[in-house]
């Protein structure tokens, strides 16, 4: 197989109303794209059953080259500082075509 190259996978679980902001964030950092999954759950903001918009989560996934991680996280931190309730976790991952993600 083609060799694999290291990337960072940024995961953000937040209320669905934040989706537009997260998409803006992805575009601001010129990522190759983004992925969104509908989710429910619970946390400091309480129960998110996914039934009403005010109580529905998304899992927002962003693959970025390690070089971009810091700048993206600064923006995520800004959202948290502003008070938005979200869980953000970053994992190592590997891809076949690094150029695709290094816009």
């Amino acid at each position, binding site marked *: 197989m083609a060799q694999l190259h290291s990337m960072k996978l940024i995961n953000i679980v937040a*209320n*669905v*109303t*934040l989706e537009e902001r997260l998409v803006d964030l992805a575009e601001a950092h010129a990522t190759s794209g983004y992925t969104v999954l*509908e989710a*429910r759950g619970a946390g*400091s*903001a*309480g*129960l998110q*059953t*996914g*039934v*009403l*918009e*005010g*109580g*529905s989560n998304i899992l927002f996934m962003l693959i970025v080259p390690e070089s971009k991680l810091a700048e993206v996280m600064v923006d995520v931190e*800004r*959202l948290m500082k*502003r*008070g*938005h*309730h979200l869980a953000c976790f970053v994992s190592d991952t590997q891809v076949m075509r690094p150029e695709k993600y290094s816009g």
Partner: protein
Amino acid sequence: MDASNLLIPAVMFFALGFLAQGVRSDLKFPPELAKALSIYLLIGIGLKGGIELSHADLADAVDAVIAALALGFALPIVAYGILLAGRLDKLNASAIAAHYGSVSAGTFLTAIAYLSAQQIEYESYPVIMLAIMESPAIIVGLLLARYSRGNGSTGADDARTHHMGELLRDAFTNGSVILLFGSMAIGWSVKPDSLATITPFFSTLFMGALSLFLLEMGMEAGKRIGAFRRVGAFLVAFGVLMPLIGGATGLLVGHYWLGFGEGGTTLVAVLGASASYIAVPPAMRLAIPEANPSYYLTLSLGVTFPFNVIVGIPLYHTFAARLAGG
């Protein structure tokens, strides 16, 4: 006030959902179904309102609109005051206040079903007031929050929600507001025979769809009871007290200001008493992110909504009947 009046499908399906949750049934609803139903119901109300509007007396309509704006702006301020008096932090108080200035379409429609079951006539203007009342409450909430934050510095980099222009924009492009006003415009402008083609879908099915929606909302309300301890006795009490204040205000506005009869006055009381759980929570998520959603969702959905459906509506109606009768 006769309890058997509560034996209408809307109320009973709500109770069924609440009960299912109470016995920890494994009954599950597809989340998308509630979202689809709420869109359907908002369009249905909007169309109805638009049709009413098309043969409404303009002066009366304007009067109702002004009254709606007054309620929408006044009630959140009252709520805010009470919440601060209860030592709640300002940002949570602002967010919760916005919910009580706005309305719950589900509660409003239950009231309509309640009146219809007793063949009680009601004026058409409250439907228009419902559509009006979403926005002012959101705006007041945002203004209270800005004031609470002192200088807008924290919001500096979130221009989109914190500048006055954006603030108004968000209040009027709110999904529910767009659906209500959009379908109201459609109901108002489309020729009757052309509207008739969509009547079977949006009107004939309406009460059945409402029952299904309330079944799911009953479950949602039931799920919130677990959070009562977390939000505390004061807020739970507020969730019962505030609808009484809003309801009383609505009774006075409906009877003395707008001169409505038994039915219309009951509906205005319900507008005042009910708290939003569809339109306002997403708005507050963005505008007052610092507030804790579990507070306002638990209050509007877990406390005030069931209280209004089971106790409030018959209560407001009893007083509305007295006023009309007297």
